[in-house]
């Protein structure tokens, strides 16, 4: 009997050494350098989709969807700031730098946020005049690199966000590869044009929460105690990080899970360091509650927020607001199928493009190349973002009304169940169809 006719199994690929893994081994063997990319964790993770709202029933009375009010406003910075930030919707725009993004993209983010009544945020490299002009509410990031850090800009900001870490790379600094260091970016960051810019991972003049408390004192003194001070941490040790941020004097704490994006870092960092967003919320809220600071120090959650259901679920678990980055870029036009031919030419496909550090973004968003950047009309893109923010808000309101809440902040963990054991344990809500919460009963 020939081998061809002999009964045999079909070829079987290894689950451990799958096609992607094999391609990465070949890529590493060929180049000798780790893979760098943008975005957040792409692996399958327990997430908000693993939660469901219960809605109204005999013991809960729903609100009329198109009649009764369901408010969405949030006040950020009520602890110490004399001028807290008042936003109309519980969704803010996360920090993204001019440098990683084009000027047009930054302008579009500002325009979209303005129309929706929320804030946007600077990034590494400082504040551009255009960004300030187009953002009614602008949060100024205070980063370890202090690139472009200027006390005049600090005073112009509406809030200050001290970045300790971010979800894509807790413990890692920023990267902006040489291809994106244009004359203007180089000038803003006081660096030679064309070099790989390595942002520091630690702040240069403080270590630990005791020092940070004094740093916050300095920032408040310089800005006349007017501005809310946020502390942003990656999803690492959310209970202790939140507790220490409160101790250090934060007005607002931003917890960014591992699905949160970055402009560029090592893929191994993105996929293997940090915790899923879903796992970070309850410990952070617990720390706030233990210190009697829940709703006094506001909690913003970010990392993989995509729709109004995610917003509502994060708030039900105890957040005051959420922040979006990747989703905002997609709303502007990032990874749009209209550029499929160009994505293919770059060796990828629309929806998977993540080589943001290379500056060749066909959508003109993650680039400093003038011809590419000019593809993005800030007015049109800004309108797309405001539409998206509006839809997310309407969706969150729809869910809140169905749960009988006249403010999204009235959503609570008791409105939720989990579809999986993992999500049940992380969100600390019962597994659907049971009263069981792993680790609690």
């Amino acid at each position, binding site marked *: 009997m020939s081998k061809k006719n002999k009964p045999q199994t079909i070829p079987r690929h290894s689950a451990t050494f799958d096609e992607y893994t094999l391609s990465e081994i070949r890529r590493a063997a060929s180049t000798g350098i780790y893979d760098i990319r943008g975005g957040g964790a792409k692996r399958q993770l327990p997430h908000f989709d693993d939660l469901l709202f219960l809605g109204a029933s005999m013991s809960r009375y729903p609100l009329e969807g198109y009649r009764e009010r369901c408010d969405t406003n949030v006040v950020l910075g009520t602890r110490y700031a004399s001028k807290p930030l008042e936003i109309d919707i519980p969704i803010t725009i996360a920090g993204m730098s001019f440098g990683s993004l084009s000027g047009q993209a930054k302008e579009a983010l500002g325009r979209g946020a303005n129309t929706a009544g929320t804030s946007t945020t600077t990034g590494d490299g400082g504040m551009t005049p255009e960004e300030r002009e187009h953002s009614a509410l602008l949060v100024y990031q205070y980063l370890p690199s202090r690139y472009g850090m200027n006390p*005049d800009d600090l005073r112009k900001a509406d809030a200050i966000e001290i970045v300790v870490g971010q979800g894509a790379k807790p413990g890692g600094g920023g990267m902006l590869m*040489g291809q994106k260091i244009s004359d203007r970016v180089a000038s803003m960051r006081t660096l030679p044009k064309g070099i790989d810019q*390595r942002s520091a991972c630690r702040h*240069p*003049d*403080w270590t630990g929460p005791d020092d940070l408390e*004094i740093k916050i004192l300095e920032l408040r*003194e310089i800005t006349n105690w007017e501005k809310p001070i946020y502390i942003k941490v990656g999803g690492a040790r959310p209970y202790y990080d939140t507790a220490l941020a409160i101790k250090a004097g934060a007005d607002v704490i931003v917890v960014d899970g591992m699905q949160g994006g970055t402009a560029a870092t090592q893929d191994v960092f993105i996929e293997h360091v940090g915790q899923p967003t879903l796992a970070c919320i309850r410990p952070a809220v617990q720390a706030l509650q233990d210190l009697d600071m829940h709703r006094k120090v506001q909690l913003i959650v970010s990392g993989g927020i995509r729709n109004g259901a995610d917003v509502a679920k994060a708030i039900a678990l105890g957040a005051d607001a959420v922040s979006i980055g990747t989703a905002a870029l997609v709303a502007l036009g990032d990874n749009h199928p209209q550029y499929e031919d160009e994505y293919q030419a770059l060796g990828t496909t629309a929806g998977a493009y993540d080589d943001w550090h290379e500056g060749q973004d066909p959508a003109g968003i993650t680039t400093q190349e003038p011809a590419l950047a000019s593809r993005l009309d800030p007015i049109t893109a800004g309108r797309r973002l405001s539409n998206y923010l509006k839809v997310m808000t309407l969706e969150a309101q729809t869910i809140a009304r169905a749960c009988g809440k006249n403010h999204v902040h009235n959503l609570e963990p008791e409105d939720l169940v989990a579809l999986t054991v993992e999500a049940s344990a992380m969100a600390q809500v019962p597994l659907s169809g049971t009263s069981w919460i792993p680790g609690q009963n």
Partner: protein
Amino acid sequence: MQTLDLQAIGLRKLNSTLHTDNASTAYKITNPMGGHAIACGLNRAMDVTIDGHAGFYCAGMNQLANVTVQGHVGVGLAENMMSGTVRVTGNASQAAGATAHGGLVVIEGDASSRCGISMKGVDIVVGGSVGHMSGFMAQAGNLVVCGDAGEALGDSIYEANIYVKGSVESLGSDCEEKPMDAEHISALSSLLEKAQVKAEASQFKRYGSARTLYNFQPDNAGDY
């Protein structure tokens, strides 16, 4: 000169007085007692003398003002300073002049570790010695050390100049000794004179970036 007693009026009143549009042009701050964030965020031309020791972030983010500390200072002296002059007659703790963009910092005594970390254009003159990791990721400006420098001087330095008169325990990654040409001697002489520090410029060695780490090369992975 107006006198402000920190212990009597408190930090908020002190700094808000210095920040007001109609602030005086000269102040003396008494009883600082190691307080933090003294005279930070000044943004107009004025002379401020702190009569005693100051804590963290003294004269932080200074613009235009001339601040003199008659004593020692804590962490982050004149951090992110943009312009003006900050002088300390004693010693400075770590991260003096961190990320500062401009102006002149003079420390007549010693400075601890990470002096001039991520400096972005400031001139820092230290009459004594500096601790380890000084000039770490220094981007622009001049760090002058009239004494000795600790280990890993200028690690990952960009385009700043470091001048050291005494010994250097070790250089950090990508930092190398550079030629001390006539132009550098001249520039350093001017800076020493401006800082009112007596030292002979020709006796200094200059250190800067070897520029081998500016763009990632796998062969240099051990240096990152």
